[in-house]
Structure formats: C-alpha cells, structure tokens
C-alpha cells in the first residue's frame, strides 16, 4: 500500500512535524510505502494562480511541475494522511491551497457530459487526519470542526465508496502536558501501524 503523508506546518521542529514522522514510522513498520509531502519545506506555492484558474476547466489544469508530481502520488495512493495544526477551525491556508491546486479536474474528480462531478480517487481506501487544536473538544464541535469536515466529507466524496475516514486529534494543546503529547504521538504511530 502507498500512503501519501501531507504535512502543513511552518516550523520544522514543530510537534506536527514529529507527528508526521511517527505516522511515517508506523506505516513503514506495517510494510507500507510512504511519500512524505512536507509543503512548507518544499516551498509549495499556497494560492492558485490566475493562469491556473484560467486553465482549470481545460485539458491541462496543472501548470506547476511540483503540482503534477504531487498529483501523480495522489493518483496512486491508497491512503491520504494529513498532518496539520487546526487554525480558525480549519485547514492552514497552505493545506487548503494544496487541495485547491492539486485536487483539480482529472485528479480528484472529472465532469461528466452533463457537467456533473464524478469521483476520481476511487483507489483511495483511507483518509486519515492528524490534527492539533488550541480549543477543547466541545468548542471544536460547536464551531463545526470545519477542517475535519472538508477532508472527511468534501474530499471523501471524491474517493471510493469504501474509503474510511479516521480522525486522530489532540485538543487543548496549549494546556496539554508533555505526557499528553508523548502519549498522543505514540497513539499516532500505533494506529497507523495497524492500518491494512
């Protein structure tokens, strides 16, 4: 199985970067191949450009070689793993930009003859979110947990009917203890090592 691990955190020494490492370690221990896409470290361009928007509905919606490379990985991935801090109840702009620019027609979906959207990621069996939150869980639920919904609902509609979303979250990170964080990182590795 191939797993694409998409990391969106600006600091290389952040807790999220460590979580991505642990996720990759777990996946490799289970015998899976891992492609780590560290968006900040690879200077991924955040916002869709005017020329990309103009090309969006055409034959070749991808103009950036880095976007094409990421799209090739996504097309052959069995699992999509997202590791990021939740900001304003949603995805960091960097990760939202990755969806906007990589999950384009011919990759994540296609338009049929009637102009309806059809899923393009039928081979994806797992969508896994690993996120840290500043807020406690009840507050996150109250504001709708918008990043989680984008990945486990909107993106899931583009995947196969068998695709299983799974969510690993650490809430109230600012008041969490070292042992909370150590324990959560261990849980991330354990759960990803159990992925089949």
């Amino acid at each position: 199985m191939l797993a694409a691990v998409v990391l969106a955190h600006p600091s290389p020494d952040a807790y999220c970067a460590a979580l991505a490492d642990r996720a990759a370690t777990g996946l490799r221990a289970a015998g899976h191949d891992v492609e780590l896409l560290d968006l900040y470290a690879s200077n991924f361009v955040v916002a869709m450009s005017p020329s990309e928007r103009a090309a969006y509905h055409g034959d070749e919606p991808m103009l950036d070689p880095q976007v094409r490379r990421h799209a090739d990985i996504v097309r052959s991935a069995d699992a999509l793993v997202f590791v990021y801090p939740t900001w304003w109840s949603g995805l960091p702009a960097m990760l939202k930009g990755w969806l906007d620019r990589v999950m384009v027609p011919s990759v994540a979906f296609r338009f049929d003859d009637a102009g309806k959207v059809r899923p393009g990621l039928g081979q994806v069996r797992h969508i896994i979110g690993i996120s840290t939150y500043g807020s406690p869980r009840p507050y996150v639920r109250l504001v709708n947990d918008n990043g989680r919904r984008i990945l486990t609902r909107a993106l899931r509609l583009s995947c196969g009917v068998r695709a299983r979303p799974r969510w690993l979250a650490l809430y109230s990170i600012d008041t969490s203890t070292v042992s909370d964080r150590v324990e959560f990182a261990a849980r991330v590795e354990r759960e990803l090592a159990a992925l089949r």
Partner: protein
Amino acid sequence: MTRALVVYCHPLEDSLVAVARDRVIAGLRAGGAEVRHTDLYALGFDPGFTASDHANHLVAGADPSLADHVADLQWCNMLVLVYPTWWSGQPAMLKGWIDRIWVNGVAWELPEGANRLRPLLRSLRRIVVVTTHGSSKLVNAVEGESGKRTVTRSLRTMCHPLTRTNWIALYGVDTLPAERRAAFLDRVERRLARLA
C-alpha cells in the same frame, strides 16, 4: 455610519465573482456606506502563515508588513467577504488572510491567567459573505458547509456578541443559465444597499 471593508478574493478579473464585488461596492455606496476595498490577488498578498508568524503568535500584533490590513480590519464595522467557494471552504488566499491578520492583539487576546480567548473586534457588527458554489445546496449540506461555519461561528466569536452574519450565495454556478446569474448579481446589489 457604516464603515464597510470589502475583502475580495478571486484570481481572475473577468470572473462572476469580480462582477459581484463591483455590485457589492455599488450597493454599499448607494446605501450611504463608506467603503474600503482589499483585492488580495491584486495586492500579491502572501497567504502562507510563516515560521516567524508562528514563533510570535503569543506576542500581540501581526507581522509589521501587514499593518494596513490590520488597520482596515480594526476600522470597519461591517466586513464583506467576496470569494468563490472551493472544496467547501474559502480559497487558500482568503484563508491565509484570516490566518495572518486575525491574530493575537488584533482579533483576540489571551490575558495572563485566562483559559479562553477574549474577542477584540467588538466594533465589527456585521459580516456579510457573497460567494459562488460549483455544487448544489444539497451537496454543500452533505459536505458540512465548512466555509459558512468558519464565518458564522469561528470568526463571529471574535466580534461583538450581537454581531450578525448574512450569507448571500449562488449554488450550482457552473450549469446556471445567464439570467439566473444576472438575477443573483441584482440581488447582491439590492441586499448590500439595504444592509449599508
């Protein structure tokens, strides 16, 4: 006196959203509001929350290069966001404006010893969203309406307790006949003139 800040986000000037922005401004002016306009793409706004933004996020104030954006947000008592909905949320460019401008000391503060954020945008009394969706209203409901909840719940929480929100949206935009788009644009101008 209504002081309206219009934050517009679309990469192409010949888009329906660009026309909607013009009608928003026309409506606001007709209603007697004072209007400031921010065009994120035209300004070349950098939407990526940086490592230094992250390192300083417990220090009050945005990056000094963003002072104009902060001043506009603190000046307005009505915020109008005009953008296309992509992947059931704000485009990365606009999410980046939220990530980088609605920061500690601008949108919220965390007083010493407090365990929850205190809102700072108490003079902002109305947030209006004008947006287009490629998908139907039903699909948006299934996907969890992330973009809408980000505004009506997350952003609104950092304003006055009585701050109102208005959602003015056009669904299924890719397959709509021209007269439905024209009717939407007329509705946008009328609504904004009334809200001004």
